[in-house]
């Protein structure tokens, strides 16, 4: 079995350790005997997601994000089509924002996103920084396999405030829902306690850390879902020894309560 990860803008959107997510997906697949190919897509590169199993895009600095926004919007319709076709994806921070409807800058300029997440972001006037604990039980309640604790741990650092638009009248499947609710930290906007977003198999979050190493259950969910999409359900997907991962996860939880964070 083979899994192909498409990494969007690896040199421009690589702000803070988000590469660790690619590494986690790669290793957790390899350790199960699954071959992994990572394809890098940059500015002006054509995009054909037929071969893609997982799409990943990390965060970047404001300057880089503006440049990428224009290129991403051009690639937008192809990505949207693939996500509608259940493509698995993970977007962090700036990428998460760009996969929404728009970003409203401090000067009132509206940067269009690729409109996959039913969400928008507006510039805030303070940095939302610190360790985060996210409660994802609502999200994972119907996933059908045992998750001991559906919490995510990570570190957020953003001034943008993202608001998700869950809409009545649509089924859960058609909606953009939060990834979870913050027990510690600010989350999407510091107001409604939501963190991140999920639409079909596309995930978005503000969590660095990197996200996946300390939250192996999410990494495995992405890999498993991607494999099932391509190969059906008739294959072995063994559990890995995640003792170290969970010890790191516990430390992060502890530090969310004890560490002092300060910002400029």
């Amino acid at each position: 079995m083979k899994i192909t990860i498409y990494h969007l803008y690896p040199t421009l959107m690589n702000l803070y350790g988000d590469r660790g997510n690619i590494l986690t997906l790669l290793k957790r697949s390899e350790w199960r005997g699954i071959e992994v190919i990572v394809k890098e897509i940059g500015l002006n590169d054509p995009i054909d997601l037929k071969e893609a199993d997982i799409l990943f895009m990390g965060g970047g600095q404001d300057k880089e994000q503006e440049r990428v926004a224009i290129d991403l919007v051009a690639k937008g319709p192809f990505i949207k089509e693939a996500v509608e076709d259940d493509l698995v994806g993970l977007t962090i921070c700036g990428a998460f924002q760009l996969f929404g409807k728009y970003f409203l800058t401090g000067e009132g300029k509206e940067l269009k996103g690729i409109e996959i997440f039913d969400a928008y972001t507006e510039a805030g006037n303070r940095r939302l920084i610190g360790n985060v604990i996210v409660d994802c039980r609502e999200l994972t309640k119907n996933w059908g396999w045992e998750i001991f604790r559906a919490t995510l741990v990570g570190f957020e650092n953003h001034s943008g405030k993202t608001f998700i638009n869950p809409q009545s009248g649509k089924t859960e499947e058609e909606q953009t829902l939060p990834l979870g609710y913050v027990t510690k930290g600010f989350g999407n906007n510091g107001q409604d306690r939501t963190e991140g977003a999920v639409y079909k198999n596309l995930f978005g979050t503000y969590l660095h850390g990197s996200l996946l190493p300390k939250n192996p259950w999410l990494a495995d969910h992405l890999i498993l879902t991607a494999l099932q999409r391509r190969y059906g359900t008739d294959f072995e997907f063994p559990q890995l020894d995640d003792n170290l991962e969970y010890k790191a996860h516990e430390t992060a939880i502890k530090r969310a309560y004890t560490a002092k964070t300060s910002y400029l």
Partner: protein
Amino acid sequence: MRKFLAILVGKLLIFISRVLKVGGGSALPGLVAEKIDPNILKKLTQKFSSGSIIITGTNGKTTTAAILASILKAAGKNVVHNYTGSNLTRGLNSTLIEKASFFGKIKADIGLFEVDEATIPEAALKIQPRAIIILNLFRDQLDRYGELEKTKDLIGRGIFLSPGSQVILNADDPLVASLKEDAKREVLFFGVENETYTQKEQHFHSADSLDCPRCGQEFLYTAKFFGHTGKYQCLKCGYTRPTPQVKVQQLKLWGMEGSDMAIEVQGTTLELKNTIAGFYNVYNILAATAVAFSLEIPLEVIKRGVESFSSAFGRLEKIKIGSKNLYLLLIKNPSGFSEVVETLVADSKPKSLLIALNDNFADGTDVSWIWDTNLELLKNHYRFITVSGIRAYDMVLRLKYADLAGNIDIEENLETAVQKSLEKVEDGEYLYLLPTYTAMLDIRNWLTKKGIVLPFWKIK
């Protein structure tokens, strides 16, 4: 009156903190003093006959300042220097208050200060330094600074606020070199010309600024040193690496043993042989030489100063413990950590390592940065790795995903970790300790309490 009170209280706090062994008094005294007299920094630095030097940048401040201090001493100058690396204004003030008389007189010719990047505007304005040198700008502690552009702008502000200062810039770092526009005066550039140690094609992505700061086009590099430093040019707007006036023409690195280099300045060549390891330290030596040159210190004196230098506080610091040796190599950010690792694996001898990762305020509270570091290089180059610190498990995870297996132990308690690791080291051999900042301070404090290391205030 304010000044007197500030100094009095400051000195009292320094005394108390040392007697009670609650710290070295390198930050709190200064903090309280500046609350009493907000202009204390200006008042205490006004009267140096040779003015002050400010050194800033992401990596290398402490080492560059220490090398420069060695050169200045060789030149017979009396220096006030915040050598422990306490580099916010409170740190500068603590250093000055300690050296000052109760009435604010300091017996020194020159002030030498490493200054935290975000503190540059205030420090430059109050000190009005004779020279300000910027070493590099790498991604570091994003939870404190936000973004690289903002950091560069802060430094630019500082340069603008001290119009009389000589500005000295790293030509090989495009972001730093672009500060010339903010300088609006003649700038002294330093850089490496020799291309022996350039990166191969597929190097790890710890680069941050690969684009032209003027027009945003991606740079073409004819040679890359590390991170985003190298020889660059923009094919769109023509912005090119400036020719450095102080440059390394010959270079030979000897792994952990040090290096030989030839620096050309104004047509003359200065040959230096030193014991400070690593390519990143070539820049620190070069930078210190550039400052010394701008101060018109004769080349033979510079040579003496550099060659008699051994290490800075907690950076490549060698400490003897019984029959064994400890080698402290501070780690702070992806480029710094990657460079330390590259230096460690440069020779074929497997190393005994202790990595200590903390996430306190001074270490950076977001440990994401370890995932941007090229630890894969350690494969087959280590005897054992002990992992310690508050976030030991994060580091162990990083090593696991770097496919490093076997001989990796976790011991969260730092002192126990050092003891256990030393037991596994042969007599006469080295334990290489890679701590983040507060872990480094904890280790030094512990060694000081055991009498192995002199308390840092007794060294000078």
